[in-house]
């Protein structure tokens, strides 16, 4: 078990030695120290799932546990084949137990069965993998009706508890979270043009960030929440621009005629990665957020890369690559390298713990949200909200 943890996450954890732990101890040891370097790329898509059995739950609690654990690298198996066992009950509240190399028993209360089941799954994930689980995180996305118009929605990461946070009746696109806040930037055609809005979801107040002539889209907020990168075409072509979140200090970073698109930030705030064209070929590039010369990133074997997203731990860039008429989700080390092709889909967005992606899959040409564990390549479609759901952004 100790070796498995080391291989999964490229670093040794204390868990392998611990058979009985208090929950506080688990939380503290989750910040496991440091770093035996192994080639991490080989784990992407190839890590075997951890077999786990579930007893005592049914209905909504069971479906939450199965979904959450499957998309975080567990396989649900009969007890005889399991490495870990979870059991418990759901009589109004969740009571859950984990047994195996890690053990705990906890009761959950104060919320819906759904939310309590997510909390239990999170504790299982933390105990077994050392990573904070994703069960209680949120996503934003666009839900489009026939004819193109739609609204921005916010939901749990699995698509449940969805709530529209716009009422524009227009084409909307590209929601982006302000890190650590219940606030979004997004694109809306409400004023007849693609413009970028900021919306505080607590108060309902919103304002325009960018409504210049031409294209205003693809906002991405810096990790410190202070700056916004975006695509504007006010100078005559779609290029990457950056400004403060109040719109001040606007600056054009790229000057290509290559339909630059999809900026994202490195977690240290120094770089902006984006899709462009170099010598007539679609490439990913990065440029200093303070300006400078762009650097191309190698994506050997993954043609026509777009939609990069830099993992919060700084190690990976997820993106999508052309495959025939459609796209595959790929992951590569952030410095650029030979990517691993995972599944078909578009628009990957990293979970806060840098292990899972939400993206949109196509079913009969209609986009649906899906959640992917990049290590095991296990993925499941999220709950469909309304119309066609796409362009998900994971709350950070």
């Amino acid at each position, binding site marked *: 078990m100790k070796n498995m943890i080391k291989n999964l996450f490229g670093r040794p954890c204390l868990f392998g030695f611990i058979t009985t732990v208090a929950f506080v101890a688990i939380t503290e040891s989750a910040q496991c120290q440091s770093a035996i370097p192994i080639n991490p790329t080989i784990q992407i898509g190839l890590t075997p799932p951890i077999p786990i059995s579930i007893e005592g739950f049914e209905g909504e609690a069971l479906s939450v546990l199965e979904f959450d654990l499957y998309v975080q690298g567990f396989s649900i198996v009969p007890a005889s084949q399991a490495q870990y066992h979870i059991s418990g009950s759901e009589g109004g509240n969740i009571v859950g137990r984990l047994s195996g190399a890690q053990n705990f028993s906890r009761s*959950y209360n*104060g*919320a*819906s069965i759904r*939310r309590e089941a997510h*909390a239990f799954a999170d504790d299982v994930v933390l105990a077994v993998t050392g990573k904070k689980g994703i069960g*209680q995180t949120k996503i934003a996305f666009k839900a*489009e009706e026939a004819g*193109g118009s739609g609204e921005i929605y*916010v939901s749990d990461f699995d698509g449940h508890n969805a*709530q*529209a*946070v*716009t*009422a*524009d009746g227009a*084409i909307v*696109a*590209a929601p982006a979270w302000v890190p650590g806040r*219940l606030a979004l930037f997004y*694109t809306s055609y409400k*004023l*007849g*043009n*693609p413009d970028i809005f900021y919306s505080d979801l*607590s108060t*309902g*107040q*919103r*304002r*325009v960030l*960018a*409504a*210049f*002539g*031409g*294209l205003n*889209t*693809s906002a991405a907020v810096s990790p410190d929440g202070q700056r916004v990168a975006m*695509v504007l*075409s*006010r*100078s*005559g*072509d*779609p290029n990457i621009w950056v400004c403060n979140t109040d*719109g001040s200090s606007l600056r054009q970073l790229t*000057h*290509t*005629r290559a*339909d630059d*698109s999809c900026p994202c930030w490195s977690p240290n705030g120094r770089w902006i990665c984006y899709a462009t064209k170099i010598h007539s070929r679609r490439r990913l590039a990065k440029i200093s957020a303070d300006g400078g010369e762009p650097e191309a990133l190698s994506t050997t074997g993954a043609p*026509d890369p*777009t*939609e990069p997203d830099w993992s919060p731990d700084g190690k990976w860039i997820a993106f*999508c690559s052309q495959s025939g*008429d459609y796209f595959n989700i790929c992951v590569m080390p952030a410095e650029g390298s030979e990517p691993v092709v995972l599944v078909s889909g*578009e628009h990957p967005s990293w979970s806060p713990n840098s292990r899972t992606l939400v993206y949109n899959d196509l079913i009969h*040409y209609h986009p649906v949200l899906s959640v992917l564990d990049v290590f095991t390549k296990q993925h499941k479609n999220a709950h469909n909200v309304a119309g066609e759901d796409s*362009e998900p952004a994971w709350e950070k």
Partner: protein
Amino acid sequence: MLKKLIYSGAIAMAAAIVATGCAHKPVGVTPIPPRPEANVGDQTAPTYPQQQLANQSVTSQPLAENGPFDPSKWTQDRDALAANTIHFAFDSAVIRDSETANLQAVAAALNSDKNLNLMIEGNCDERGTEEYNRSLGERRAEAAREALVGMGIDVNRLHTVSYGKDKPAEHGHDEAAWSKNRRDDFVLLHPKTGA
């Protein structure tokens, strides 16, 4: 889609943008004129319900804003130039020689009445990611805009919008549909009397 563009001093402003950007400015790029000033700052949107956040103990843990379009100032005529929609090759914003006659027809319509303005709507087929296509659609609209400027049309009469892949003309999933969706539509804008 109506887009009102009235601005005083537009030439001076455009010149200022060109001047500030010219160190890197690719040849042949015309900045897009600013939109009219108006207050679009304070708006409201649906709140995210607080009960979704309640009981979260289990989470143990410029830009001077430019104005909206004023559709009341313009009448859209989508039919007049419907036959002159131009189409593009896959993943390309290059206007093919075969489309020259369509652009000339569009220029002729604008030359026939100096009060007319034009909205150029750039669109893409479904093969491509959404934001990528939004940029590609913009490039397609701007390619037509540049071509019409080259034919002598005043840039201030030309407006662009990209719909990416959100407004396909055909809903099929084959080249027959895709080739019709990679397009610029031209919408004539007539000023309303008294507006």
